[in-house]
């Protein structure tokens, strides 16, 4: 533990010699937080991500409540001349009736207008609400896929790097194999054959199809974290503290758990942050191809899938989901960069 003289306190000492010198020990996490706080871009990204979670999980139901319709509500009048209406449109919630004039009896029954905040898609749904609910799906896929692949990767990298020998050979050959392969094709392949069975697995709280994507991304995503962790462990295992632990009779499991794993926390957190961005992109890509989250469940990818059909007439359909994905992944990438610098003990204080 480093003990440092707090700089402002030291200055105080110079100004008023009577004051007692305060020497404050700072914890590891405190130092990380101090370094992290310096990085403005990372702080903004961090704020944006918190905001995103709040809007996705708390804001979406609130917005749906005030708008009076859900993300999957279909509006016949949301599509005008085969082109979805633009953002901030007042349309009738009545079922579509031939012609633009809404009949009197329907008007009475459904009220006059309902507000569609975002542009709508070919079903006339409210893109604003679908974006909010899609954020839930994207974040869930991002986080659960990352959890899966990082835990697998840490397990593989830790055992391979620690035990060396044939275990390491197997692990590093596996990493090499997966890295070379066009794994996107395998992801598509696995999604095609196993998707129908896995899509209905919700574990009680996940939206339809999220489990499949999280599982598939984990299966093909573990190799990169494994490679990083293996590299770190390979250099750590030769350190004196591991030798000391072994000398005192610590078991392999104990050394891995209490002596090596704490050193992996920093790379795990940094890499996970960046991997979340990758997995959000993966969801978007697969759903765009129609192989990810199936409608009517809203996701950023399947919102984007409407774009090729309409972008020439209604560019909002292209812009909104794309920008949502772009801002989110940029935020996670910047946060990852900021965390990497913050965890680096050589960083200036």
């Amino acid at each position, binding site marked *: 533990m480093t003990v440092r003289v707090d700089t402002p306190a030291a200055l105080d000492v110079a100004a008023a010699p009577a004051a007692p010198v305060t020497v404050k020990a700072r914890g590891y996490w405190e130092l990380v937080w101090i370094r992290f706080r310096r990085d403005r871009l990372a702080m903004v990204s961090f704020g944006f991500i918190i905001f995103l979670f709040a809007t996705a999980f708390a804001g979406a139901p609130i917005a749906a409540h005030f708008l009076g319709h859900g993300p999957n509500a279909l509006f016949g009048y949301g599509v005008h001349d085969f082109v979805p209406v633009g953002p901030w449109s007042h349309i009738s919630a009545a079922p579509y009736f031939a012609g633009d004039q809404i009949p009197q009896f329907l008007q009475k029954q459904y009220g006059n207008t309902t507000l569609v905040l975002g542009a709508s898609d070919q079903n006339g749904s409210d893109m604003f609400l679908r974006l909010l609910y899609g954020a839930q799906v994207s974040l869930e896929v991002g986080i659960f896929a990352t959890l899966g692949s990082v835990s697998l990767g840490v397990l593989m990298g830790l055992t391979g790097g620690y035990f060396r020998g044939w275990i390491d050979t197997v692990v590093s050959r596996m990493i090499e194999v997966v890295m070379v392969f066009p794994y996107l*094709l*395998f992801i*598509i*392949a*696995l999604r095609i054959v196993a998707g129908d069975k896995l899509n209905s697995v919700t574990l009680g709280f996940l939206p339809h199809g999220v489990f499949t994507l999280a599982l598939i991304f984990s299966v093909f995503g573990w190799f990169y974290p494994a490679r990083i962790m293996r590299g770190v462990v390979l250099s750590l295992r030769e350190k004196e503290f591991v030798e000391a632990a072994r000398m005192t009779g610590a078991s392999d499991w104990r050394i891995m758990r209490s002596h090596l794993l704490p050193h992996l926390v920093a790379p795990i957190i940094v890499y996970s942050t960046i991997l979340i*961005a990758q997995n959000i992109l993966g969801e*978007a890509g697969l759903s765009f191809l129609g192989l990810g989250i199936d409608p009517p469940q809203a996701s950023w990818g399947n919102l984007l899938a409407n774009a090729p059909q309409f972008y020439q007439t209604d560019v909002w359909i*292209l812009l909104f989901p794309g920008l949502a994905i772009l801002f989110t992944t940029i935020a996670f990438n910047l946060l990852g960069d900021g965390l990497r610098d913050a965890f680096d003990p050589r960083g200036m204080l």
Partner: protein
Amino acid sequence: MLYFLIRRFFWAIFLFLVATIITYIIFYVIPSDPAHIACGTHCTPQIVAHVRKSLHLDLPIYQQYWLFLWNMIKHQSLGYSYADGEQVNTIIRQDVPVTASLVFGGAVFWLSISIPIGILSALRPRSILDRFGMVFVLIGISAPAVWIGLILAYVVGFKLGWTPIATYCNLLPTSGVGTCSGPAEWAYHLILPWMTFMFLFAALYVRLIRANVMETMSEDYVRTARAKGASSSRVLFQHVLRNSMLPVVTILGMDIGLALGGAVFTEFVFNLRGLGSQLIQSANRDDLPVVVGIVVFACIAVIIFNFLVDVAYAWLDPRIRLST
């Protein structure tokens, strides 16, 4: 060098076996009944049984795999499509030129932009170019591939009208009314897909090249070369680039697999009839042999390409070239 190449050759063969086994397991073991898929929707149990027998799906799995492998090696055949009975080889042969033009043209595009930007931003860290390059990298790694493609199609193709948005033209001149062909038309129609590739991959490469060049610049031998009085261009080209470009060659070999995956999205967005769109189309109608054929073909292409990269690497790197 010979020892290195022999080892890599056996590694390539091993990779081929692993690839085919994984593909086989994914497609013929995981789904409940391939025979049912092959037969289609209107099928009596008798016909399903017959189909199962004729496709050898009643044999044990290892025998099935062996047959699959044997057909591929002995007859170079990847089987027949369930949908229309066409040879998978024929289908792939039709689609390969599109994907190959896309991937290799894209590679030329992304390398020709990322090498200069990467080197310049490494030589002048924190300059305007470097900062601009870093923003470009951030957007490139953060934006969805399809979105970049669609934005390019919207801005360049639709609003500005500079390039065509979709369709593919043959590289070699072919006769026929209403078809476009020839190198000029080919390149003109592929500009947008190539630019999409450029955005996606240039980001990774700029970052990689920048990091490599910066690392090499701080090596002792660079300082020695400077101390000897070598001109800065000589230091850059003779000492720095030769060493910092070696890893780029390796990564390029690995990324061909990634690029084949990226081709799926690009073809989908720009409506090109290549392997990627064929894969999605066949997948949507449960045409397993075509999907398997494309995946296996892609794996073989990646393995061969990686082997070639290894050869190039062995020749470029004197540590391997001169070793026995």
